[in-house]
């Protein structure tokens, strides 16, 4: 697993170089080139005895070449210092990884830039891999990364002051969750040869959790990812269609991931201040722990949504809560609340209305709203899913209340 080793070492090597030489910009470029060289040489010549030291030495040399072509003016002053590669373990690598994550998710950067920079500098992905993952041309991602690095050029490579840390860590969590959702929704088979973004997000969230084990929201995010990803084997039906939660074959869920996620979120809720990722993970845990869809503890889910609505209100939380409310108090109650909401104009409101109408037996109405939502979504897999739901309403087959028996 050379690829895995390279990705694991990437942030440590960037950290070692930046600490030694300064200049995140050039150091990160140099590490990227060292990683590319290793990806070619190691499978051919074997993995070196000390892979980290190899990467640091190669990146140090590459950095000198880059910087020579970059600024001949500084060459004489820095040359001697720059020749010796840094000690592979000058400071604990864990601190560097956290510093690097926070730097990549710097508030001066746009969200897509934070994502691209994090995947490259911390995740060790190549620009080409990131471009493939996001279905944009490589130069677009290359520009985004080099521009992002220009923007953070003057930023010190050290942990931000304690009072800034919560908001900076919150940005990292958002970036990791974005990477996860990109991979999760695209897993319906539409893109072949994409990097496993869900796996990458989980790996980075694990790293962050190892660095900050007492942060309840970091734990919550890792749990949420594990509990959501656990259902992946059952999410995709024949032909790449999305299978609704209520109809998934639960024996195909990843029980190991569920157990880990449940244990993480249980611990976080018991020991840390409650936050939105923990609550979303708790909701996912209630679903994952139900042996059948019919046995889902909906009152518990509704309670968690009520809490989530207080902690992190938003239109999506309001809409998703109505789905839980329909299960506890019936679709009529949920439809009444939906009618009372200010019209958001978001297609997701149409999805929820369609679902509630289907639940209440109004298949014609459900079909109308599924169709309307399908026309307005910007996600191709989601469109296919909504169209299939609309079709099913046409055939007069109502939404199953019980777990379906496989046929």
């Amino acid at each position, binding site marked *: 697993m050379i690829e895995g080793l390279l990705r694991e070492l990437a942030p440590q090597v960037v950290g070692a170089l930046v600490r030694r030489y300064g200049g995140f910009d050039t150091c990160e470029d140099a590490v990227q080139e060292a990683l590319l060289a290793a990806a070619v040489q190691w499978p051919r010549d074997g993995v070196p005895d000390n892979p980290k030291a190899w990467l640091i030495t190669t990146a140090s040399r590459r950095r000198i070449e880059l910087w020579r072509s970059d600024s001949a003016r500084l060459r004489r002053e820095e040359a001697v210092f720059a020749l010796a590669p840094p000690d592979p373990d000058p400071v604990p690598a864990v601190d560097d990884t956290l510093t690097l994550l926070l730097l990549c998710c710097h508030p001066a950067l*746009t*969200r*897509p830039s934070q994502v691209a920079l994090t995947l490259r500098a911390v995740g060790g992905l190549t620009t080409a891999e990131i471009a493939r993952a996001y*279905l*944009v*041309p490589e*130069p*677009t*991602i*290359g*520009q*985004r990364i080099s*521009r992002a690095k220009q923007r953070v050029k003057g930023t010190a490579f050290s942990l931000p002051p304690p009072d800034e840390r919560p908001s900076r860590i919150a940005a990292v969590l958002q970036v990791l969750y974005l990477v996860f*959702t*990109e991979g*999760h*929704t*695209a897993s*319906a088979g*539409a*893109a072949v040869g994409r990097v496993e973004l869900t796996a990458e997000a989980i790996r980075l969230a694990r790293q962050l959790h190892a660095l900050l084990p007492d942060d309840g929201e970091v734990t919550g995010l890792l749990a949420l990812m594990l509990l*959501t990803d656990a259902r992946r084997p059952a*999410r995709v039906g024949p032909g790449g269609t*999305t*299978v*609704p*939660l*209520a109809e998934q074959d639960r024996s195909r869920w990843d029980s190991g991931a569920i157990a880990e996620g449940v244990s993480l979120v249980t611990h976080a809720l018991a020991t840390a201040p409650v936050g939105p990722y923990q609550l979303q993970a708790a909701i996912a845990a209630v679903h994952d722990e139900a042996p059948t869809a019919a046995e889902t503890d909906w009152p518990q889910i509704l309670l968690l949504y009520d809490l989530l609505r207080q902690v992190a209100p938003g239109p*999506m939380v309001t809409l*998703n809560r109505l*789905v839980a409310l329909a299960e506890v108090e019936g679709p009529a109650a949920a439809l009444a609340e939906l009618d009372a909401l200010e019209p958001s104009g978001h297609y*997701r409101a149409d*999805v*929820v209305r369609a*679902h509630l109408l289907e639940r209440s037996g109004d298949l014609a109405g459900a079909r109308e709203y599924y169709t309307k939502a399908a026309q307005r*979504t*910007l*996600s*191709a*897999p*989601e*469109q296919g*899913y909504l169209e299939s739901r609309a079709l099913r309403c046409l055939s007069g087959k109502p939404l199953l209340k019980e777990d379906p028996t496989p046929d």
Partner: protein
Amino acid sequence: MKYLVLIYGNPASRSAWAGMSDEQKAAGLRAYVEFNEELDASGERIVSERLAAPELTKQVIVREDRVSTTDGPFAEIKEQLAGAYLLECDTEERALEIAARIPEAPYATIEVRPVMGLTGDVGFEL
């Protein structure tokens, strides 16, 4: 998010272009070069193309396995596609802002349409 920006010319804009001096045309094209460079630097331009004259349009019609090709353009259509940008932007507002700065925007009709993607709401599979 990707956005396709479509630039439609009309008879007035086409004759305005035809009536420009070489210097004016060169200045117009230079404005595009600078505009594109700026969008390349921000990583927002995926591709853009200027289309050949609408007179060079060919329409391809396939019906019941028969292919027929006819010459365009189609006189009743006043607005003709003149060029397009494929952008990658953070927000729709940003795409609209870029669209408004297209050098020929004052003479043309510009449409901005989101491109379908693969990403959706994690919780959509109700």
